[in-house]
């Protein structure tokens, strides 16, 4: 915050902090307990298996790509929903929120139907974008899973930014695009951070959508959640839990580093 305000510890602080620490503890307990189910040799051995390495790499690559794409779309859409007035805006807002409510299986089916053998799919196919049962499909599935969250957070963030700041930049001769980059985005920093964290986490964690659209092909479209699922399905809980633990560690590191970059106003 930059401000060094008077800080006498009050009941207010204590109560809010205790709620915070209570939930943190509960989550920590929940997360930590998973570490104690598999044996350590098991984890150590599984962690270096080619399958694990493959799926970790694919998770990271697709995770980064789809998060980048999500933000690329969420920024203009969130901005448009916050600033512009246009016909059907309420409807658009609802539609972009809706996928959050879908079970991953349903969202996967929806995407499969669109990208499968419809004219959209055929068109995309013809320009080399085949999403069904491919690695591109993994990214596509993650993209559509995370996008609604990012849009909603960005909209709410831009709502909190005074449009006059943008107007000032324009009155100094900068175009609306330049203003968007010079003023709107920097001011939305904290919101962008929040939606990037959530998007990335959602991307690497989503399972059902990827499974249906990209297929759970061994060592092909296999990301960490799929590894987890496939291994549980034939009873190899050791490998499954190892991939769960890898996923946790990856997300912990990614989020921790992200959150560290946070700034106050």
């Amino acid at each position, binding site marked *: 915050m930059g401000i060094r305000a008077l800080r006498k510890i009050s009941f207010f602080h204590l109560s809010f902090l205790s709620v915070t620490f209570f939930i943190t503890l509960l989550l920590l307990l929940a997360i930590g307990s998973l570490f104690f189910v598999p044996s350590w040799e098991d984890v150590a051995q599984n962690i270096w298996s080619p399958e694990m390495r493959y799926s970790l790499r694919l998770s990271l690559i697709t995770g980064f790509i789809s998060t980048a794409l999500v933000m690329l779309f969420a920024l203009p859409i969130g901005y448009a929903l916050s600033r512009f007035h246009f016909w059907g805006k309420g409807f658009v807002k609802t539609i972009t929120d809706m996928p959050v409510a879908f079970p991953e299986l349903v969202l996967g089916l929806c995407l499969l139907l669109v990208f499968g053998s419809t004219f959209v799919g055929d068109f995309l196919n013809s320009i080399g974008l085949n999403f069904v049962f491919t690695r591109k499909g993994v990214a596509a599935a993650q993209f559509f899973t995370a996008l609604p969250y990012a849009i909603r957070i960005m909209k709410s963030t831009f709502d909190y930014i005074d449009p006059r700041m943008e107007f000032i930049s324009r009155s100094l001769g900068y175009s609306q695009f330049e203003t968007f980059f010079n003023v709107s985005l920097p001011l939305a920093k904290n919101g962008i951070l929040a939606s990037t964290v959530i998007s990335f986490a959602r991307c690497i964690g989503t399972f059902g959508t990827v499974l249906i659209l990209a*297929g759970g092909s061994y060592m092909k479209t296999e990301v960490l959640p799929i590894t987890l699922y496939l291994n549980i399905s034939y009873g190899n809980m050791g490998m499954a839990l190892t991939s769960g633990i890898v996923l946790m560690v990856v997300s912990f590191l990614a989020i921790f580093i992200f959150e560290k970059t946070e700034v106050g106003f």
Partner: protein
Amino acid sequence: MIFSGAGLIKPMEEMRHNFEQKHNIRTDVHYGGSGEIFACLAAGQPADVFIPGAEKYTDDALKNGWVIKETIHKLVLHEPIIVVPMGNPANVNGLMDLTRPGVKVAVGDPKAPAIGRVTKQIFEKNGISEKINPNITVLAPTVNQLLIYVALRQVDASIIWKDLTSWAEEKGKLEVVPIPKEKNIIQTIPTAVCTNAPNKELAVKFNDYIASEEGMKIWTKWGYEPCGK
């Protein structure tokens, strides 16, 4: 493009590899829960071979006209067994013990995963459907849940497929209580070629290959019992 039950991944991968070498082609295997791959078929996704975890799915697919009746092969046996957490806290030694008051049993939903229907049939066959009802703590829609519940000691016993137990048994998470053959109902894993297979010729070849002698050897290697004869 092959749709396969996720539990079959190990033998499938090997057979796929061999098949690719032999015919010098590329195949895609799409693993998933039987229900999920069934849903993909339902969504009209073109597939060549359909290998779910239980006959029920093939039957349903046949009813909808998605697979070709003549190409259905029964592949291997799928044997249900009783699993209990390590140390057998409720001291379950057979089917009858499941009816003892206070024993927490997790079973598959009779209509959902293949194991559910089989379990129900086993109970019926042994005349304990009524008595076991109060003990059923949870009716699970997926078989994975049953494994998890037992391995994490949330229930005292469950009935699942034998091939799911290897890791947990090895790691000392659970114990297996076999069901005698005469009280058991053993299932088979089927394969079939899809009606709208894009590469019908190869599909038929693969379908036959996994049911062949050579295929059976691989199944056996991964601990499955061929049902051929």
